């Protein structure tokens, strides 16, 4: 259980986190979303005691991080930035951390096997790829078998196999009753791995709800219709009160009418339908819709953001 209460952090004139309050419950994966510069990493650093808040508190299992006696046994953290001495081997890096908590060497071997770094355990970390570095970070997070996991962009740099592995691992750990807070800017990744979402923008809370609710709340439902008689069908739908946008001479995007009703209309008039697909907004679209007003680095001032581009506007600003 992670509790954040009226947390604020200023860096000079910039308010990175602004009166943020939320709670992360055990037993499920909680996604932590926000455009770049929204304050995700700062919030995580505040939770982990790496920064001091100006006001408010962040507690883990009721305690501030710096008051935890053996913190790695309570909280496992993966930070976005690398936190490894490049001249040290993976094994020694984990051993250094294990020794501070009184964990045996056997545990180091276990987590190395768990993340699949056995072959390179005694090689310098400096030569690791991004994905190997992420695996090492996950190994460090899991070292103390913690009840709480705080993971900042854990799938960054992982190959598809690694992404699936991390996704399953997070679900498995949450299923054991652990608290899992995972930040990401990959919305689709969150859609499949997180049950609960905390969305922030410009340091403020935008949404704290389940993933399904989040999508439902902010999606504009529409139906994609394909028909050789698109023009005739468009007229019918308009007279029934639907909104029609012609994508081309055979495809329509219909709003305001549910798919079954459109099907019934076409059947009544004997029109051929090639496709009738209800369109659900993806998490990505829902996210962009919700955070539109709170994007820190906005690209739309210079050029209109084409909605079909996969990445959120902030991604392209990098």
């Amino acid at each position, binding site marked *: 259980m992670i509790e954040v209460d009226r947390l604020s952090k200023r860096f000079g004139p910039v308010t990175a986190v602004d009166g943020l309050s939320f709670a992360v419950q055990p037993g499920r994966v909680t996604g932590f979303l926000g455009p770049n510069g929204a304050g995700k990493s700062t919030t995580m650093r505040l939770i*982990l*005691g*790496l*920064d*001091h808040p100006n006001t408010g508190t962040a507690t883990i299992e009721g305690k501030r*991080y*710096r*008051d*935890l*006696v*053996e*913190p*790695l*046994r309570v*909280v496992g*953290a993966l*930070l976005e*930035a*690398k*936190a*490894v*001495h*490049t*001249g*040290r*081997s993976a094994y*020694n*890096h984990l*051993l*250094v*951390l294990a*020794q*501070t*908590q*009184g*964990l*045996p060497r056997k*545990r180091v071997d*276990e987590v190395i096997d*768990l993340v*699949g770094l056995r072959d390179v355990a005694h090689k310098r970390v400096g030569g690791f790829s991004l994905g190997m570095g992420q695996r090492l970070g996950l190994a*460090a997070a*899991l*070292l*103390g*078998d913690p009840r709480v996991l705080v993971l900042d962009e854990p799938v960054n740099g992982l190959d598809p196999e690694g992404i699936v*592995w991390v996704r*399953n*691992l997070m679900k*498995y*750990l949450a299923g*054991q009753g652990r608290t899992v807070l995972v930040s990401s800017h990959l919305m689709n990744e969150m859609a499949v791995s997180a049950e609960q979402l905390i969305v922030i923008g410009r340091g403020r809370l935008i949404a704290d709800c389940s993933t399904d609710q989040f999508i439902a709340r902010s999606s504009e439902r529409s139906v994609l219709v394909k028909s050789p008689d698109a023009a005739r069908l468009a007229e019918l739908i308009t007279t029934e009160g639907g909104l029609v946008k012609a994508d081309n001479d055979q495809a329509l995007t219909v709003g305001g009418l549910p798919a079954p009703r459109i099907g019934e209309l076409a059947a009544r008039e004997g029109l051929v339908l090639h496709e009738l697909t209800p369109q659900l907004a993806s998490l990505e679209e829902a996210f962009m819709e919700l955070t539109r007003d709170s994007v820190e680095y906005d690209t739309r001032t210079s050029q209109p953001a084409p909605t079909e581009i996969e990445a959120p506007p902030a991604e392209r600003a990098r």
Partner: protein
Amino acid sequence: MTAVTPAPPAPVAPASGAVRFGRLLLSEWTKIRSVGSTVASLGLLVVLTLGFTALLTWLTVSQWSKAEPSQQRQIIADPVSTILGSGFQLSQLTICVLGVLVITSEYATGMIRASLLAVPRRVPMLAAKSVVFAVLVFIVGELVAFPSFFVGAAILHGKAPVALGEAGVLRAVIGSGLYLAVLGLFALAVGGLVRHTAAGITGVIGFVLVLAPLAQLLPGSFGKHVHAYLPSEAGHLIGQAHQGPTTCSPPGRGWACSACGPRCCSARRPTSSSAEMPDLRGSRRQPRHQGMACTTSPRCWSPWRQGYGESEAKVCCRCSSFSSAWPASSSGGEGSPLSVASSLSTATWTCSNGSAAPTGSGTSWSNAHGGGSCSAHS
């Protein structure tokens, strides 16, 4: 591939403070032994010290006939100073570099974040790091100091014989290793303050090598005062068999202490801006020294020092203590600024004539000294 084996359960009662500090020491030891820079620096220390001790003492012997008679007398009076002064002056730089690297490499690589996640309270971590590093450097320093002495003594034997059993020699050899440990702590403290490898190394080496000659250029007695406080002076003095009472407590320790203090303060704040940094100059303010004087013959005055404040004070070339005219205004009337560091420590040192000097016992020590070491080279 999703199975997670649980870690061994944490002990029911949390580990005591001592046990936890022991774990920190073990962890810091793993840190320091598992990076290449430690092995490289300490290896270089061994090679440079032994190599330059052998080279420079050999040069001294081979150029013996060309040396000034006064120079020859100096070497004969205190051969251990010649032996230990040669190699260590150069090889101490490796300790400066390593001391800075031990802490700044954590900041440079981001390892500090992992360290702080494991140990959220910084002062115990810095303390463990300092202890492990100082002990390591002390041990390696001793392992270098003794062979250096034996090598140098063997080469110098024909001209200026010296044995480990002679008065002050063993202390000087052990002191050389101790000086390296204290210098390393100083470097570590500076590294912890600036948190930047290049800046830290430049700063420490500049302090040790550049500031000493520069201080001598300062006009009047000012340069003399400054010079006497420099850490390199402590290393120079502790490597001598015969020295003044004031050097029994090397000022280098004062430097390490004064630098460690603000480092710990600044460590409490993870994002310390310059405004939050404690005033280093304030903490370097030295307490008043205890008055002590050296009874020496005029022959003993260091030539370069005579240019500065000759009229008011003279400095003994061996022990760096000052003649009777040294600041009359201070308590006790006479003495050297070198003695001030003694008030920072409660350690007891054995001086060259074998008597122990508890810090602060200015007068009696001065008397003992007067009849002991300094008169030996007058």
